[in-house]
């Protein structure tokens, strides 16, 4: 599930929840996410790590 950083105060959900600017939330109604992103009211903060794969890090030692 994606998480979003709130950029303007939002009231959402039932029962109503409040998120202030700066809060990171993951329970925004999916139907609202697109217009909130489009109008720069939220920004993607990340997603839960459950489905991400670890990528091995290769260090370049310069040899």
């Amino acid at each position, binding site marked *: 599930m994606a998480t979003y950083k709130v950029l303007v105060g939002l*009231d959402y959900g039932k029962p109503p929840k409040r998120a202030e600017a700066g809060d990171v939330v993951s329970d925004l109604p999916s139907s609202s996410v697109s*217009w909130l992103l489009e109008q720069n009211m939220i920004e993607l903060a990340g997603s839960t790590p459950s489905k991400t794969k670890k990528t091995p890090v290769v260090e370049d030692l310069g040899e």
Partner: protein
Amino acid sequence: MAFIHGKSAIVLQNEFNLSTYFNDISASRSVETAETTSFGSSAKSYITGLVDGTISLSGMFDGAANAIDAEMTDVLGVNAGAVLSASVSGVTTIGTRMISATGKLTSYEVTAPVGDVVSANAEFQADDGIGNAVSLAALGAITTTTTGTSVDNGASSSNGGFATLHVTANTMNDATVCKVQHSADNSTWADLQSFTSVATTVVTAERIKVANGTTVNRYLRAVATPAGAGSFTYHINFARQ
């Protein structure tokens, strides 16, 4: 379509409901035009320019504190002008079309004829035009947090607007926060414009411009959050541009 009588019109000026002193209100809007007629034209053509507006109020003189004479003379010569809202339909229920403006008082005339009531007439020049507002909170008292029902504009607009608050009575023993919210889906609401926090027992008015170019979503509503105990009498409207 329903026609309405003017007998119940409401006039709010700053933190005062002056309706009982007036018996006539006239709001005049105009748009200047610049001629673009060129050689070869068969008729004159024009492009529109800047909008403008004036508000005229006529009524009866009263020299008591907080009555018409005191409030008009208080704003005469004040560059900030007066916050004006009016409803020609006589109600301020949510969704009612309103007139809103920041008015600079350009004339105030008191007339005392020997055979008639003493009258008072005022002319305001609208600063930044007269707004075609819609009521988001009916003039009335609340004691707890109140979220107004939403007003559907049918579509979003893209040029900002004006948010107006009048607080005509306040016995709250703590501050009250009022704001206008907007929504694209009538479900999730974003703060559009917050008013200055209203301190305990303060009566006031504020008209804030939402910058030109700002998207104002299809749905609007007002939220008032009083703290403490008491009563808070207010009205909020919003004029899209």
